[in-house]
């Protein structure tokens, strides 16, 4: 930049024979400055001055959409679940409680559910919420033209998958019926123990179809959106903020009248905001700088709780040397996971030797492979790589996101330390590229994670069916698949949990296509005397309708 300027300076100075230059430049400059100020003030008008809110929170990033049928992310889900409500909802503890449905019954075989809607429930424009709203909204989710990535949540319904994949086009064949305004009858393809959790999920929330029809894609904009949950959409400025206001038509009182949602995705900026009291709550773990955690761990505003999500390493079992179970077991046994959670992630994550996080009601996990470097070395030698000699060049793939890079670096060094392998190289990719590479199973090892969709081991274990879309390891076991099928058709919860336990044993002890590393800890920042209704729960699902400000009358 400086060099370009001096060229002009050369040019200017080279002009000879100057006499008194005209008084052009200075007025031109002043005029330019004035013009700038005019521009400034004109655009000033396009700013919206900071709107006041009762609660300001950092949500992690800008939501991709606020259409509950279409979204897939946790942060979008939080906002949608404040705007919309399904048949069931959750309380602050995370338990399933009645939502739009006041009560329900189901047949002993677990295949038919009958929901009775609460009387008097309304949309935010005064229209009543009816069973047809649910019927039509679920049709919309399953309808292929909506391209809902979570449509498979409704594949549990009879003929749900057939309709979703376009094999049938008559929705009346799908297992959901509305015999009258207030009753919804759902018929499932097989008993689904966690179905009531699914009905609280955003995908199964109803949307106001006349609005959708009228405005098309624009229906989610403020002023147009009609919602049935505790909040309405008051304002939405992209990358700036979202403003939610209490829905007067919601069936119970909403304690916090206005919530301002900040899409800040820079963790340090989020923390700065909290520190300077510009924001009251940081909800998303990614919005808390990991390097800070050990310094603020003991502060009254720091809250951490493990929840249903696991970090694990995937093997590509079709590539050498990972086609050898001994190699996989060796790497699993030699991973000093305690080192990683103490040094790198530092939020008190529990070490994971199993895939399914603890806390799933009624489920006991197997033991998994515990850190045992001596046994690992023995296995590795047996497989033909004593002390790591001769181990081929392989790559550990990781997404450039959060602490993954540091974790990967650490893992590489740990395996070198404990097994003597120094031919593991790192390969970091941006998130979308990483997802693509993983999808194509174009890796040797990959650092992965999974957040459970609902509180049941199945959400973790059904990933690894042979050729499943979320399997991405090239591994498959017909016995495993068979056991999954059986469990889906077992109505007895105790028997079912036993089957799932045995499945997981195959996964993490016998066959080891994956190495579980640690269970995630959900972190949040808020002052308990300023915010109530926020409690740790397994699914990390904190409904905003449950928030209240202690000592303040709603």
């Amino acid at each position, binding site marked *: *930049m*400086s*060099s*370009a300027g*001096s*060229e002009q300076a*050369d040019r200017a*100075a080279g002009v000879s024979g100057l006499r008194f230059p005209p008084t052009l430049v200075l007025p031109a400059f002043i005029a330019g400055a004035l013009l700038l100020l005019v521009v400034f003030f004109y655009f000033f008008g396009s700013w919206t001055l900071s709107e006041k809110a009762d609660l300001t929170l950092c949500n992690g990033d800008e939501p991709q959409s606020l259409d509950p049928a279409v979204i897939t992310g946790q942060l979008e889900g939080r906002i949608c679940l404040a705007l919309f409500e399904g048949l069931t909802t959750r309380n602050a503890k995370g338990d399933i409680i009645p939502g739009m449905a006041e009560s329900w019954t189901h047949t002993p075989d677990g295949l038919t559910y009958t929901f009775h809607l609460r009387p008097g429930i309304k949309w935010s424009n005064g229209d009543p919420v009816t069973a047809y709203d649910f019927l039509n909204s679920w049709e919309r989710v399953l309808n292929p033209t909506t391209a809902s990535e979570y449509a498979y949540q409704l594949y549990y319904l009879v003929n749900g998958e057939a309709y979703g994949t376009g094999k049938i086009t008559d929705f009346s064949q799908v297992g959901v019926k509305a015999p009258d305004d207030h009753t919804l009858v759902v018929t499932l393809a097989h008993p689904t123990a966690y179905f009531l959790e699914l009905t609280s999920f955003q995908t199964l929330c109803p949307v106001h179809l006349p609005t959708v029809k009228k405005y098309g894609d624009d229906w989610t904009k403020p002023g147009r959106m009609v919602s049935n949950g505790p909040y309405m959409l008051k304002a939405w400025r992209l990358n700036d903020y979202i403003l939610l206001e209490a829905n007067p038509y919601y069936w119970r009182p909403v304690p916090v009248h206005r919530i301002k949602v900040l899409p800040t995705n820079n963790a*340090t900026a989020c*923390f*700065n905001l909290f*520190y300077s009291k510009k924001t009251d709550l940081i909800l998303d773990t990614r919005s808390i*700088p990991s*390097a*800070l955690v050990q*310094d*603020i761990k003991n502060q009254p505003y720091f809250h951490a709780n493990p929840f249903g999500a696991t970090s694990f390493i995937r093997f590509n079992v079709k590539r050498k040397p990972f086609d050898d179970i001994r190699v996989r077991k060796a790497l699993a046994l030699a991973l000093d996971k305690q*080192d990683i959670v103490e*040094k*790198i992630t530092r939020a008190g994550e529990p070490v994971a030797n199993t895939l399914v996080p603890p806390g799933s009601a009624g489920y006991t996990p197997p033991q998994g492979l515990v850190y045992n470097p001596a046994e690992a070395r023995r296995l590795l030698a047996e497989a033909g790589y004593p002390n790591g000699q001769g181990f081929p*060049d392989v790559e550990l793939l990781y997404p*450039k996101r959060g602490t993954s*890079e*540091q974790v*990967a*670096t*650490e893992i590489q*060094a740990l395996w070198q330390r404990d097994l003597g392998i120094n031919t593991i190289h*790192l*390969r*970091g*990719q*941006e998130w979308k*590229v990483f997802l693509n590479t993983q999808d194509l199973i174009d890796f040797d090892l990959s650092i992965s994670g999974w957040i459970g969709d609902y509180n049941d081991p199945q959400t973790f274990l059904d990933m690894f069916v042979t050729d499943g879309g979320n399997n991405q390891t090239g591994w498959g076991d017909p016995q495993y698949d068979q056991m999954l099928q059986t469990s889906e058709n077992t109505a007895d919860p105790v028997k079912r949990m036993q089957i799932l336990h045995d499945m997981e044993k195959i996964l993490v002890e016998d066959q080891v296509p994956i190495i579980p590393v640690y269970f995630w800890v959900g972190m949040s920042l808020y002052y308990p005397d300023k915010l109530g209704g926020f409690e740790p729960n397994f699914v990390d699902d904190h409904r905003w309708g449950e928030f209240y400000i202690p000592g303040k009358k709603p």
Partner: protein
Amino acid sequence: MTALLSFYRVVRNDRFLIVCAFFLLAVFLLAIWGPRHTGYRYDQISDASLLPPSHHHWFGTDVNGRDLLTRTLFGARISLLVAALGALISLTLGVTYGMISGYAGGRVDNLMMRLVEIIYSLPTLVLVIVMVTTLDNPVASLLHRLGLVELSPRLVLIVAFLGFTEWLTMARIIRGQVLVLKQQPFVQASLALGQSHVRILWKHLLPNLLGLIVVYLTLTVPTIMLDESFMSFLGVGLQEPLASWGTLIANAAFLINPIRLYWWLLLFPAGLMTLTLLALNFLGDGLRDALDPRIKK
């Protein structure tokens, strides 16, 4: 040649510039030999995570427990390498382009300068980011096929593209100078003697441009270093555990927070980089002043 001699005289007479020159030499030597003698490897992790400077770790450690002194010196290697190679590319491109454009003159010159105008108005850094992001995988496969497994595809891409963003200024300057030199009697004489254009360019013009080239080289290098650190900050820099000053600074910048300032992570790499850039800029300025007959002190 006379330009280079006058450089030497300028530097020798100015104490400040001597300091700058020696400092750069020191950095250069440290970059080459330093990382081997600190007692740590640049990718060696330990449990001593995020420790301030101590007599075990003169510069402290980073989050993976790696010694910062070693990483900073290693980073010097990479930063200087990237900047030097990038500057070399932009130099080659710029000088060749400028020389041809200025020498050819007329419509060819016009056309070439218009191309420069066009490229000037592109948000090049923005495009570089898009290109590095999107070409990472293909380049990686290409390098694999060529057997260059050790070479980081990112390094190659960054060097190549940074070189491509900075050659414009050099081209313009060289062209301007060539336009002037073209009129000189010795060039006219050579033409009259029937010497080939290439010979004239190589034997007569180029030596007279060396001074200018050196000056703008010392000014391009800092720009490229800053560009590289900018890209690291945006997440499109080098692959871990490789380190350049840019990645070290970017990582440290991410850790800045009001509670605990990991000052050593930022101060040492940023400080060293800033001092190096300062030295280069001062040297370049001093040399340029020496070249310019009009600015006489």
